[in-house]
């Protein structure tokens, strides 16, 4: 007979372990254990059967995978935590004994640890890190503008500010921004970096009230890990586009609240080359006395100098060939290495625009969005220092203002509200500014993240923008059939076998034919009306007064269905009646769902129709004298 297996030795009880058992195994305090789990990315799990997992007990406990806990056993951070605990104990003792010098010495030599190995462990490939970047960015951007609380010190907030600004600079440099949406929760941005779509949210910069019911210890741990991750990611992204990392901070500008402009972004090559040239020069000058020793370094210096000279010419040649990139500047300013991933300058939305931001608009968001799409930005002095344009500058083409009435206006620029910028970015074309002028009632700001499926309510604005975008992008070289005739026959040289018309002329767009038929009908109708003695204004009046065409409906309000549709419905009904009760319930639930959705859609549509009619009738008496 086989040996009897003891209960709870295999299966769920082996795969899951409780939190207390884990603590005992790792010899950690609960706080340390939680911190470690956060840093390693280990989360509690819910087993199918708590009884089996907990060896017969059904008490409420937290479970972890045993394999995860085994991973933690060999974690070097545990030793660091223990060292930290010992340090705290020593410090406490010193302070208790009022031995302040010892306390100070201890504090200066406190054990520190970094999380670099964790980043490498958790994200073996860079694409993995980019995939998880959303959370990191949201956290870092949140704390960049948060007032300091316990556990989140000023240094951490400054670090967050620096990291967020660096990331924004990368997005600006590579023109990676794709979508922006202003919502209640904050400003959503979506950028496309190395093929990954990264979405993050930035809170509005009001003076936030820090909530009291949030556990900031947990947030601080997350923040620590995300700061390290973002630092790594920034380094990798910056070096990928040949920019120096970390970028230098211009303290004067920073003190003047220049925001984005306070970091000096420089191309790496120039830096390196200059460094090399400088060090080469020094070597050369030092080794002048010693020929042999000096030849080698001076040769290096000369070669380096020659290479630098030719490099500049070569760079300019490359830039001239790739006419999209702006002129190359040797040092400082916005360096522009040609990044293959970046959009061509010609494609950028605000390429030819110089935008000036009034003092009441959110500069932190608008400057980023406009610069990320190729525009140049200036701002009012009270928004911060370092603006490249003053208000009187003639080069400014657009001024963003968010006030009810604009007092003094320059004629050469358009005054629009900030929503124009965001809607243009989402629509991927410069929208008509008439709807967004200062003082205008703005159209709805629709989310670009919503994909309208069939059966969803599509707001009028969305369908209008989509139609305009489609019309704009497609059919650039659509020749009319007659033009196509001429075009084709000019190409062919042979006189006898000349094709007067293109073979696929039959595929002339049917919309044209329908439009022409409509024009013809309208022409005939109007001509007959005029011949009957009706003038244009009377005709228009008649059109306005005519009630809206009644929708052809059968009794019961449902639209007419074709014979095929009725047959289809009959077949469906028979098939459903043949199912078992259980399956029928499922089918009916699904059908009830779709029915409810279509009912909601109809309600939305009727409400919209009523609202537009009410608005039109309200506007009418105003329009007529």
């Amino acid at each position, binding site marked *: 007979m086989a040996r009897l297996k003891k209960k709870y030795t295999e299966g769920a009880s082996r795969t899951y372990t409780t939190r207390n058992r884990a603590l005992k195994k790792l010899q950690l305090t609960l706080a340390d254990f939680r911190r470690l789990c956060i840093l390693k990315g280990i989360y509690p799990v819910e087993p199918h059967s708590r009884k089996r997992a907990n060896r017969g007990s059904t008490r409420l406990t937290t479970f972890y995978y045993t394999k995860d806990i085994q991973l933690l056993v060999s974690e070097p951070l545990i030793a660091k935590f223990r060292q930290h605990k010992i340090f705290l104990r020593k410090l406490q003792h010193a302070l208790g004994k009022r031995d302040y010098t010892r306390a100070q010495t201890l504090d200066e030599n406190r054990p520190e640890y970094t999380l670099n190995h964790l980043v490498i462990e958790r994200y073996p490939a860079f694409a993995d890190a980019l995939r998880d970047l959303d959370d990191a960015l949201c956290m870092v951007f949140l704390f960049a503008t948060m007032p300091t609380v316990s556990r989140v010190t000023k240094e951490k907030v400054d670090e967050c500010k620096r990291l967020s600004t660096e990331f924004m600079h990368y997005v600006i440099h590579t023109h990676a921004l794709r979508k922006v949406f202003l919502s209640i929760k904050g400003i959503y941005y979506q950028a496309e970096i190395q093929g990954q779509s990264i979405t993050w949210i930035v809170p509005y910069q009001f003076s936030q009230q820090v909530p009291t019911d949030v556990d900031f210890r947990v947030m601080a741990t997350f923040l620590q890990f995300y700061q390290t991750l973002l630092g790594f990611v920034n380094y990798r992204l910056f070096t990928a586009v040949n920019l120096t990392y970390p970028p230098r901070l211009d303290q004067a500008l920073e003190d003047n609240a220049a925001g984005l402009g306070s970091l000096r972004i420089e191309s790496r090559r120039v830096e390196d080359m200059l460094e090399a040239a400088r060090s080469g020069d020094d070597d050369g000058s030092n080794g002048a006395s010693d020929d042999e020793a000096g030849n080698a370094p001076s040769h290096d210096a000369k070669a380096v100098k020659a290479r630098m000279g030719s490099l500049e010419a070569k760079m300019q040649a490359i830039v001239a060939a790739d006419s999209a990139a702006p002129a190359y500047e040797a040092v400082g300013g916005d360096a522009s290495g040609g990044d293959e991933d970046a959009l061509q300058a010609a494609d950028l939305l605000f390429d030819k625009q110089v935008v000036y931001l009034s003092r009441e608009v959110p500069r932190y968001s608008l400057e980023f969005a406009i610069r990320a799409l190729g525009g140049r930005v200036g701002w009012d002095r009270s928004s911060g220092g370092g603006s490249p344009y003053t208000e009187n500058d003639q080069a400014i083409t657009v001024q963003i203002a968010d006030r009810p009435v604009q007092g003094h206006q320059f004629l050469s620029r358009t005054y629009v509200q900030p929503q124009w910028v965001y809607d243009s970015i989402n629509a991927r074309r410069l929208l008509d500014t008439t709807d967004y002028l200062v003082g205008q009632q703005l159209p709805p700001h629709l989310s670009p993240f919503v994909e309208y499926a069939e059966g969803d309510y599509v707001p009028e604005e969305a369908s209008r923008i989509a139609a305009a975008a489609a019309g704009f992008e497609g059919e650039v070289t659509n020749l009319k*059939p*007659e033009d196509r*005739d*001429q075009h084709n*026959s000019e190409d062919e040289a042979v*006189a*006898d*076998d*000349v*094709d*007067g*018309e*293109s*073979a696929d*002329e*039959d595929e*002339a767009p049917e919309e044209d*034919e329908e439009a*022409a*038929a409509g*024009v*013809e009908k309208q*022409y*005939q109708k*109007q*001509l*007959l009306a*005029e*011949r009957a*003695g*009706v*003038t*244009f*204004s009377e*005709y228009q009046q008649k059109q306005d007064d005519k009630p809206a065409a009644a929708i052809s409906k059968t009794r019961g309000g449902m639209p007419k269905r074709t014979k095929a549709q009725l047959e289809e419905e009959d077949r469906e009904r028979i098939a459903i009646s043949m199912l078992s009760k259980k399956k029928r319930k499922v089918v009916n639930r699904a059908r009830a769902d779709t029915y409810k959705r279509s009912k909601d859609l109809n309600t939305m549509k009727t409400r919209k129709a009523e609202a537009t009619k009410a608005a039109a009738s309200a506007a009418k008496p105003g329009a007529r004298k």
Partner: protein
Amino acid sequence: MEPSGEAQVQIRLVATQKKYEVPDAPLVVPQQLQRYGLSEIVNHLLGHERPVPFDFLVDGQFLRESIAQYLKRHSLSAENILTLEYVESMLPPTEIASYSHDDWISSVAAASADRYVVGSFDGVVRIWNARSECEGELRGHAAAVKSVAAVADGAKRGRVGAVSGSQDRTAIGWGIKGKQWKALYAARGHTDSIEAVAVNPGGTHFVTASADSTIRFWTLAAPKQSEDAADETPAAKKRRGGADIMSKAAIGTLSGHVGAVSSVCFNTDEESQVFSGGWDHSVRAWDVAAGVNVATSLCDKVVLDVAYSGHSRLLATGHADRAVRLWDPRAKDSTVVKLRLSSHTGFVASVSWAPSSAHMLASASHDGTIKVWDIRSRTPLYTVHAAGDSDKGKKLLALDWHESLLLAGGESGSLRIHSVNSQYAAGPDRAQA
């Protein structure tokens, strides 16, 4: 800055008819106005109580959209003054009579304002007058009559008044003999059905186009004696039965088409030049005297009808792809379509130019409608549907525009006569350069 937010443009109105002239000063009008609104402005300036409809031409083309759309389409600035020519609109054609036949009508030709020659699929050619009387039922063909042509002043005694081509491979010349219409001769020579006949403007010769891909050229006058075809064997003559109609032989044959030749017409400007269109998608110009194919234009669609206008110097062709195409035979690249008018929803079986206008033409189609076009506009001026319910949708196979009458007939068997008043029917001086 535009007042009240409406875009405006300056226009100058130029009248084409003296009686509708307005002062020359430029006017400022809103850009969104179309023909109707502009017409109201002109009527107001002329002080008409009852509005007269006007049509507006910009740069030789009719304005069929709002001024704003026109400016946008041609990327013009609203700063410039736009010159608009205006002309009184054409009245719609009205049906004035309808004569019914037993069988489908294959072709119709108006000899004068009150004599119409109608060929029908029952092999009978009927002559009608304006008082809805049938002056004669001419029987002589053994099969369906496919085409008729009327000679302008041919009702004199002994002279040929009409020629009819038929599926029995003969074309019979008819004339009045002793107050009766009689067959004067039968032109034999074709080896397949005759699809089209045309008489030259001088009334001396006629051509026949046939499904045997040849075009034969004949004299119009009745022969003194029977001219038998040279290649006809006595056996074939016996088979024919030695009919009492005299035979006529062709002067010449023009071959070049591949497949049936569906239509033929004379060039009224050039001596002895003929245009033909065939099922081989080609429109050919022939020099009849030399017997040579002068020019060929290929289009990818079967040609169903050709018509030439001396006023506009353009050749109009009706096609199976529901379009009417205009060609310029005198241009160097005469192989290129000048204009393509499409609005019909069926094969365009017949086209006919207005006799006194350089811009107007009419087309009849298998969708049962006649469309009157002005070539300066992409869309037709008028669409004439059948009056009676039974005739709606029945194919129209024949069309002729004579003076101010539009004759059409087809599947329904009824010959419809419309009165067309083109108010701006201009004379030859308006022909295109």
